[in-house]
């Protein structure tokens, strides 16, 4: 195919057709200070070896999660991903095809997605799941929009202990819609107060309550009373899970009465990936399936009666329902879903339970070690693999000091809560944390606090 650049005349024709003087006028909505004033200052060209050396040197300035004691969580978790996962997802049939949904040529991909949905439904304790969304936060936005459609109400209430980044994404997604989405103030590690505030906020106008389990402070919640209160008022319970491995140990959202479950699926099969691409899991009850956003894969029989897989219930989607579609996002995280499915298949049910127990054991060990440090207080009454601890000084400063010693100590709560909770630090311990890592963390922390 030849590349045919536009001529000056082409440009002038197009500009006059749309009634604009110059190309730059099209950028008038972008704040001036954000516009590039001159070409980016880069060298014109360099040899391959020079480029490689330069970028390796830059890369070496990073402190990689896998190279140091690592206790960072708060919605993204470092787990061991078996080499099998990477090997299988890189098979050409899976890796290269973009939206390969034509059943005539894509039975492998469709079968994987069908099995993925089955795994997600079982894991969350729900009836049906879609073929994935972008990530947990956009999934939360979709869950609220779906709850508003199902209940034909507009007022959604988010827990103050929902991950603040998720809240921000929801606010962005609903900023220009007529949905009335409210967020309660955070109650910190006091999860009983949060649940009480959520219950008190529900009335006949409420479409749904959105709550995270374990919440952003690591606390595990019994959501059954909240589910009951929501249902009494004709509202739905939306449960968000940012650490999906926890479902190997705690009661599933479905069993606690959730109507829609959203998870960040990164923890299984996927690396930290600098914050993306991630994997949104989305599941609900059978009776709401027509309001489910996203792609759904179904099992059927072909003309010869043989089992086959297709995309199904497509009338919910944008290419058929246009502006009435259940979502304007009409793609999914196919490759991340594949990685999730392969990893979960390798683990099996017993393996997942074992992995979850191992995470909890590591965190118990970490808690014990941290509690031995004078001035450090563990705030949690319950937890899975993450703790909120209170330090005698600003956690941001402690994290920065420990990073200088090549220990990544966790996420200061102040980063999530706009400088509130200055002394609270969120620390996670997964199966990759060794006794040596914990010892190094404790020693460095003691040094910093003494």
């Amino acid at each position, binding site marked *: 195919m030849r590349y045919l650049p536009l001529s000056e005349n082409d440009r002038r024709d197009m500009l006059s057709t749309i009634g604009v003087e110059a190309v730059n006028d099209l950028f008038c909505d972008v704040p001036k200070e954000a516009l590039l004033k001159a070409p980016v200052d880069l060298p014109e060209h360099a040899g391959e070896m020079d480029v490689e050396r330069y970028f390796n040197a830059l890369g070496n300035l990073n402190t990689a999660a896998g190279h140091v004691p690592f206790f960072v969580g708060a919605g993204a978790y470092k787990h061991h991903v078996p080499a099998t996962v990477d090997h299988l997802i890189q098979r050409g049939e899976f890796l290269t095809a973009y939206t390969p949904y034509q059943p005539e040529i894509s039975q492998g991909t469709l079968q994987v997605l069908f099995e993925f949905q089955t795994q997600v439904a079982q894991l969350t304790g729900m009836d049906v799941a879609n073929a994935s969304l972008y990530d947990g936060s956009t999934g939360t936005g979709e869950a609220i929009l779906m709850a508003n459609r199902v209940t034909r109400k507009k007022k959604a209430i988010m827990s103050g202990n929902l991950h603040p980044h998720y809240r921000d994404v929801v606010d962005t997604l609903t900023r220009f819609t007529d949905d009335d989405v409210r967020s309660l103030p955070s109650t910190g590690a006091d999860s009983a107060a949060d649940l009480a505030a959520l219950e008190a906020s529900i009335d006949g106008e409420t479409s749904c309550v959105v709550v995270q389990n374990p919440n952003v402070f690591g606390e595990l919640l019994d959501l059954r009373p909240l589910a009951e209160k929501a249902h009494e008022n004709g509202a739905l319970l939306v449960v968000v899970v940012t650490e999906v491995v926890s479902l190997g140990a705690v009661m599933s959202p479905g069993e606690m009465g959730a109507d829609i479950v959203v998870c960040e699926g990164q923890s299984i099969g996927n690396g930290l990936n600098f914050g993306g691409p991630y994997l949104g899991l989305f599941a609900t009850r059978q009776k709401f399936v027509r309001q489910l956003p996203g792609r759904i894969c179904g099992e059927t029989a072909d003309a010869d009666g043989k089992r086959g897989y297709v995309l199904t219930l497509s*009338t919910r989607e944008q290419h058929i329902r246009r502006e*009435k579609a259940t979502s304007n996002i009409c793609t999914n995280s196919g490759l991340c879903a594949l990685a999730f499915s392969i990893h979960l298949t390798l683990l099996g049910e017993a393996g997942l339970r074992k992995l979850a127990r191992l995470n909890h054991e590591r965190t118990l060990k970490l808690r014990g070690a941290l509690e031995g440090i004078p001035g450090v207080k563990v705030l949690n009454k319950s937890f899975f693999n993450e703790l909120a601890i209170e330090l005698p000084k600003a956690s941001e400063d402690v994290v920065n000091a420990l990073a200088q010693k090549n220990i990544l100590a966790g996420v200061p709560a102040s980063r999530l809560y706009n400088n509130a909770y200055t002394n609270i630090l969120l620390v996670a311990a997964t199966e990759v944390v060794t006794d040596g890592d914990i010892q190094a963390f404790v020693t460095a922390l003691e040094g910093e606090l003494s």
Partner: protein
Amino acid sequence: MMDIIKYTEDHEWILVEGDIATIGITDYAQNALGDVVFVELPEVGANYGKGDDASVVESVKAASEVYSPVSGEVVEVNTALDDAPDLVNQSAMDDGWFFKVKMSDPSELEDMMDETAYDELVKGLS
């Protein structure tokens, strides 16, 4: 008082009995849609203005809105369609009805077509 049947340009029929209007889609509409696989019914108690989206009918070919042709409150829905949406194909004008509305403004019926006028409309479409 005689029962009367009215028609809309959106191919809905309205059977009027007192202040209760029973609403469905016409035989022409079901035939154009093809095999109906799902009907999303409104909720009993919901209030609609004339022309509001009240229901969705989904066939193997397409999904279409069904508008409430009159203002009022939904008093009954045809739950038989949940398990047997094909009733819309088999009996569009009778067993395949969608929902009943207690009309708040019966004068809205005045502009609507009677059977003769609707037949003319359909003839013009074929």
